[in-house]
Protein backbone atom coordinates (compact mmCIF):
# COMPACT_ATOMS: atom_id res chain seq x y z
CA UNK A 1 0.00 0.00 0.00
CA UNK A 2 1.34 3.37 -0.92
CA UNK A 3 1.08 6.04 1.71
CA UNK A 4 0.44 9.50 0.26
CA UNK A 5 2.96 12.19 1.03
CA UNK A 6 1.82 14.59 3.69
CA UNK A 7 3.25 18.06 3.87
CA UNK A 8 3.08 20.51 6.73
CA UNK A 9 4.40 24.04 6.29
CA UNK A 10 5.04 26.43 9.14
CA UNK A 11 6.11 30.07 8.83
CA UNK A 12 7.79 31.46 11.92
CA UNK A 13 8.84 34.89 13.01
CA UNK A 14 12.51 35.40 13.81
CA UNK A 15 12.03 35.07 17.56
CA UNK A 16 13.59 32.91 20.24
CA UNK A 17 10.13 31.47 20.93
CA UNK A 18 10.06 30.17 17.36
CA UNK A 19 12.90 27.80 18.22
CA UNK A 20 10.81 26.11 20.92
CA UNK A 21 7.72 26.12 18.72
CA UNK A 22 9.48 24.50 15.77
CA UNK A 23 10.93 21.80 18.01
CA UNK A 24 7.55 21.14 19.62
CA UNK A 25 5.79 20.80 16.26
CA UNK A 26 8.59 18.55 15.03
CA UNK A 27 8.37 16.27 18.07
CA UNK A 28 4.64 15.79 17.51
CA UNK A 29 5.08 14.98 13.84
CA UNK A 30 8.02 12.64 14.44
CA UNK A 31 6.17 10.85 17.23
CA UNK A 32 3.08 10.41 15.08
CA UNK A 33 5.26 9.12 12.24
CA UNK A 34 6.39 6.24 14.43
CA UNK A 35 9.86 7.33 15.53
CA UNK A 36 10.88 6.18 19.00
CA UNK A 37 11.73 8.58 21.83
CA UNK A 38 15.43 8.63 21.08
CA UNK A 39 14.93 9.35 17.38
CA UNK A 40 12.31 11.99 18.19
CA UNK A 41 14.82 13.73 20.42
CA UNK A 42 17.43 13.64 17.65
CA UNK A 43 15.05 14.91 14.97
CA UNK A 44 13.70 17.57 17.32
CA UNK A 45 17.14 18.76 18.25
CA UNK A 46 18.16 18.90 14.58
CA UNK A 47 15.19 21.14 13.80
CA UNK A 48 15.96 23.19 16.89
CA UNK A 49 19.58 23.70 15.82
CA UNK A 50 18.58 24.58 12.28
CA UNK A 51 16.01 27.13 13.43
CA UNK A 52 18.56 28.58 15.90
CA UNK A 53 20.96 29.06 12.97
CA UNK A 54 18.20 30.69 10.92
CA UNK A 55 17.28 32.92 13.87
CA UNK A 56 20.82 33.94 14.80
CA UNK A 57 22.92 33.82 11.67
CA UNK A 58 20.57 33.64 8.68
CA UNK A 59 18.02 36.24 9.66
CA UNK A 60 20.29 38.02 12.12
CA UNK A 61 17.54 38.16 14.76
CA UNK A 62 15.55 40.53 12.55
CA UNK A 63 11.96 39.86 13.53
CA UNK A 64 10.44 40.91 10.24
CA UNK A 65 12.27 38.16 8.43
CA UNK A 66 10.65 34.74 8.32
CA UNK A 67 11.79 31.20 8.94
CA UNK A 68 9.97 28.61 6.85
CA UNK A 69 9.90 25.05 8.08
CA UNK A 70 8.43 22.24 6.01
CA UNK A 71 7.83 18.69 7.19
CA UNK A 72 7.19 16.10 4.51
CA UNK A 73 6.13 12.58 5.38
CA UNK A 74 7.52 10.80 2.35
CA UNK A 75 7.08 7.03 1.79
CA UNK A 76 10.41 6.10 3.40
CA UNK A 77 11.47 9.10 5.41
CA UNK A 78 10.54 12.29 7.16
CA UNK A 79 12.12 15.16 5.28
CA UNK A 80 12.45 18.55 6.91
CA UNK A 81 13.39 21.81 5.22
CA UNK A 82 14.33 24.96 7.12
CA UNK A 83 14.65 28.11 5.03
CA UNK A 84 15.75 31.54 6.16
CA UNK A 85 15.98 34.94 4.47
CA UNK A 86 19.65 35.53 5.10
CA UNK A 87 22.70 35.72 2.85
CA UNK A 88 23.20 31.95 2.73
CA UNK A 89 26.37 30.03 3.54
CA UNK A 90 28.65 27.30 2.27
CA UNK A 91 28.87 24.13 4.26
CA UNK A 92 32.56 23.91 3.38
CA UNK A 93 33.20 27.15 5.26
CA UNK A 94 31.86 25.78 8.55
CA UNK A 95 34.78 24.82 10.84
CA UNK A 96 34.99 21.24 12.08
CA UNK A 97 34.00 21.37 15.78
CA UNK A 98 35.89 18.12 16.42
CA UNK A 99 39.22 19.60 15.32
CA UNK A 100 41.58 20.03 18.24
CA UNK A 101 41.77 23.80 17.78
CA UNK A 102 37.95 24.10 17.87
CA UNK A 103 37.15 21.82 20.80
CA UNK A 104 36.94 24.65 23.31
CA UNK A 105 34.94 26.98 21.11
CA UNK A 106 31.61 27.93 22.62
CA UNK A 107 29.68 27.70 19.36
CA UNK A 108 29.76 25.95 15.99
CA UNK A 109 28.34 22.54 16.90
CA UNK A 110 24.81 22.88 15.52
CA UNK A 111 25.48 21.64 12.01
CA UNK A 112 27.64 18.84 13.36
CA UNK A 113 24.75 17.67 15.57
CA UNK A 114 22.28 17.81 12.67
CA UNK A 115 24.64 15.74 10.53
CA UNK A 116 25.15 13.26 13.34
CA UNK A 117 21.48 12.84 14.15
CA UNK A 118 19.90 12.78 10.69
CA UNK A 119 20.34 10.25 7.87
CA UNK A 120 20.53 12.93 5.19
CA UNK A 121 21.69 16.51 5.47
CA UNK A 122 22.37 19.20 2.87
CA UNK A 123 22.48 22.97 2.60
CA UNK A 124 21.59 24.71 -0.63
CA UNK A 125 20.76 28.22 -1.70
CA UNK A 126 17.03 28.76 -1.71
CA UNK A 127 15.28 29.90 -4.89
CA UNK A 128 13.66 32.63 -2.82
CA UNK A 129 17.03 33.69 -1.43
CA UNK A 130 18.58 32.63 1.86
CA UNK A 131 19.84 29.25 2.95
CA UNK A 132 17.79 26.09 2.78
CA UNK A 133 18.71 23.22 5.07
CA UNK A 134 17.26 19.91 3.95
CA UNK A 135 17.51 16.95 6.27
CA UNK A 136 15.79 13.61 6.50
CA UNK A 137 15.38 10.67 8.83
CA UNK A 138 14.32 7.31 7.49
CA UNK A 139 11.46 5.58 9.26
CA UNK A 140 12.60 2.88 11.69
CA UNK A 141 11.34 -0.01 9.56
CA UNK A 142 12.84 1.29 6.34
CA UNK A 143 16.46 1.69 7.46
CA UNK A 144 17.42 -1.77 6.30
CA UNK A 145 14.37 -2.68 4.24
CA UNK A 146 13.13 -1.53 0.87
CA UNK A 147 13.57 2.25 0.93
CA UNK A 148 10.37 2.69 -1.08
CA UNK A 149 8.08 1.09 1.49
CA UNK A 150 6.99 1.87 5.03
CA UNK A 151 6.40 -0.64 7.79
CA UNK A 152 2.97 -1.14 9.33
CA UNK A 153 4.02 0.99 12.27
CA UNK A 154 4.94 3.80 9.93
CA UNK A 155 1.50 3.99 8.38
CA UNK A 156 0.00 5.81 11.33
CA UNK A 157 -1.31 9.20 10.37
CA UNK A 158 0.00 12.27 12.19
CA UNK A 159 -2.49 13.59 14.69
Amino acid sequence: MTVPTQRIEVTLETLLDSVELAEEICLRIAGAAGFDEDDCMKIGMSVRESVINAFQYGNGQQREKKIHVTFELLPAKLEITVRDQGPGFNLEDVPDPLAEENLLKTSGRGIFLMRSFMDEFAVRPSRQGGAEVVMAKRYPGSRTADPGSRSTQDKEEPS
Partner: protein
Amino acid sequence: MSFKATPRESGAVTVIDVSGRITLGEGSSMLREMLRDLLNKGQKRIILNLADVNYIDSSGIGELVSGYTTVKNQGGELKLLHLTKRVHDLLQITRLFTVFDVQSDERAAIASFG
Protein backbone atom coordinates in the same frame (compact mmCIF):
# COMPACT_ATOMS: atom_id res chain seq x y z
CA MET B 1 10.95 20.96 32.89
CA SER B 2 12.33 24.50 33.15
CA PHE B 3 15.93 25.23 34.05
CA LYS B 4 16.91 25.47 37.68
CA ALA B 5 20.34 25.73 39.30
CA THR B 6 20.84 25.54 43.07
CA PRO B 7 24.30 25.97 44.59
CA ARG B 8 25.30 24.33 47.87
CA GLU B 9 28.57 24.23 49.74
CA SER B 10 30.47 21.07 50.55
CA GLY B 11 33.64 22.13 52.30
CA ALA B 12 35.70 24.19 49.90
CA VAL B 13 33.70 22.93 46.95
CA THR B 14 30.50 24.38 45.50
CA VAL B 15 28.12 21.84 44.04
CA ILE B 16 25.50 23.28 41.70
CA ASP B 17 22.47 21.03 41.33
CA VAL B 18 21.18 21.72 37.85
CA SER B 19 17.84 20.49 36.55
CA GLY B 20 15.78 20.92 33.40
CA ARG B 21 17.03 21.97 30.00
CA ILE B 22 20.22 23.86 29.25
CA THR B 23 19.36 25.53 25.97
CA LEU B 24 19.62 28.79 24.08
CA GLY B 25 18.09 31.51 26.22
CA GLU B 26 17.23 31.24 29.87
CA GLY B 27 19.10 28.09 30.92
CA SER B 28 22.39 29.03 29.33
CA SER B 29 22.49 32.61 30.58
CA MET B 30 21.43 31.70 34.14
CA LEU B 31 24.20 29.15 34.42
CA ARG B 32 26.75 31.66 33.11
CA GLU B 33 25.67 34.28 35.65
CA MET B 34 25.80 31.83 38.52
CA LEU B 35 29.32 30.71 37.62
CA ARG B 36 30.42 34.34 37.31
CA ASP B 37 28.99 35.13 40.76
CA LEU B 38 30.75 32.17 42.33
CA LEU B 39 34.07 33.15 40.77
CA ASN B 40 33.63 36.73 41.97
CA LYS B 41 33.19 35.35 45.48
CA GLY B 42 36.42 33.42 45.11
CA GLN B 43 34.76 30.02 44.84
CA LYS B 44 36.82 28.28 42.22
CA ARG B 45 36.17 24.62 42.95
CA ILE B 46 32.90 23.92 41.27
CA ILE B 47 30.94 20.79 40.44
CA LEU B 48 27.96 20.86 38.12
CA ASN B 49 25.61 18.08 39.15
CA LEU B 50 23.75 17.34 35.91
CA ALA B 51 21.76 14.34 37.20
CA ASP B 52 18.46 16.05 36.43
CA VAL B 53 19.45 17.65 33.14
CA ASN B 54 17.56 15.73 30.51
CA TYR B 55 18.22 17.97 27.54
CA ILE B 56 21.02 20.16 26.33
CA ASP B 57 21.43 21.77 22.90
CA SER B 58 24.51 23.18 21.17
CA SER B 59 24.12 26.47 23.05
CA GLY B 60 24.02 24.57 26.32
CA ILE B 61 27.12 22.62 25.33
CA GLY B 62 28.76 25.93 24.49
CA GLU B 63 27.82 27.23 27.92
CA LEU B 64 29.43 24.25 29.63
CA VAL B 65 32.59 24.85 27.59
CA SER B 66 32.48 28.55 28.43
CA GLY B 67 32.09 27.75 32.12
CA TYR B 68 34.94 25.28 31.99
CA THR B 69 37.37 27.72 30.36
CA THR B 70 36.27 30.69 32.49
CA VAL B 71 36.83 28.78 35.73
CA LYS B 72 40.09 27.32 34.46
CA ASN B 73 41.40 30.72 33.36
CA GLN B 74 40.86 31.98 36.90
CA GLY B 75 42.87 29.15 38.35
CA GLY B 76 39.89 27.03 39.32
CA GLU B 77 38.38 23.73 38.29
CA LEU B 78 34.95 22.85 36.98
CA LYS B 79 33.89 19.22 37.06
CA LEU B 80 30.75 17.53 35.80
CA LEU B 81 28.84 15.02 37.91
CA HIS B 82 26.15 12.42 37.18
CA LEU B 83 25.65 12.84 33.46
CA THR B 84 22.39 11.49 32.06
CA LYS B 85 22.78 9.18 29.08
CA ARG B 86 21.73 11.90 26.65
CA VAL B 87 24.22 14.44 27.96
CA HIS B 88 26.90 11.76 28.15
CA ASP B 89 26.27 10.79 24.51
CA LEU B 90 26.35 14.42 23.40
CA LEU B 91 29.68 15.05 25.11
CA GLN B 92 30.97 11.82 23.61
CA ILE B 93 30.14 12.65 19.99
CA THR B 94 31.41 16.22 20.34
CA ARG B 95 34.69 14.90 21.82
CA LEU B 96 34.15 17.00 24.94
CA PHE B 97 34.05 13.95 27.17
CA THR B 98 37.84 14.01 26.97
CA VAL B 99 37.97 17.70 27.90
CA PHE B 100 35.78 17.71 30.99
CA ASP B 101 36.56 15.93 34.22
CA VAL B 102 33.42 13.80 34.41
CA GLN B 103 32.63 12.15 37.73
CA SER B 104 29.96 9.66 38.75
CA ASP B 105 30.30 9.82 42.55
CA GLU B 106 29.88 13.07 44.48
CA ARG B 107 32.25 12.21 47.32
CA ALA B 108 34.93 11.13 44.89
CA ALA B 109 34.33 14.26 42.81
CA ILE B 110 34.79 16.50 45.85
CA ALA B 111 37.89 14.59 46.93
CA SER B 112 39.37 14.83 43.44
CA PHE B 113 40.09 18.56 43.66
CA GLY B 114 43.81 19.11 44.03
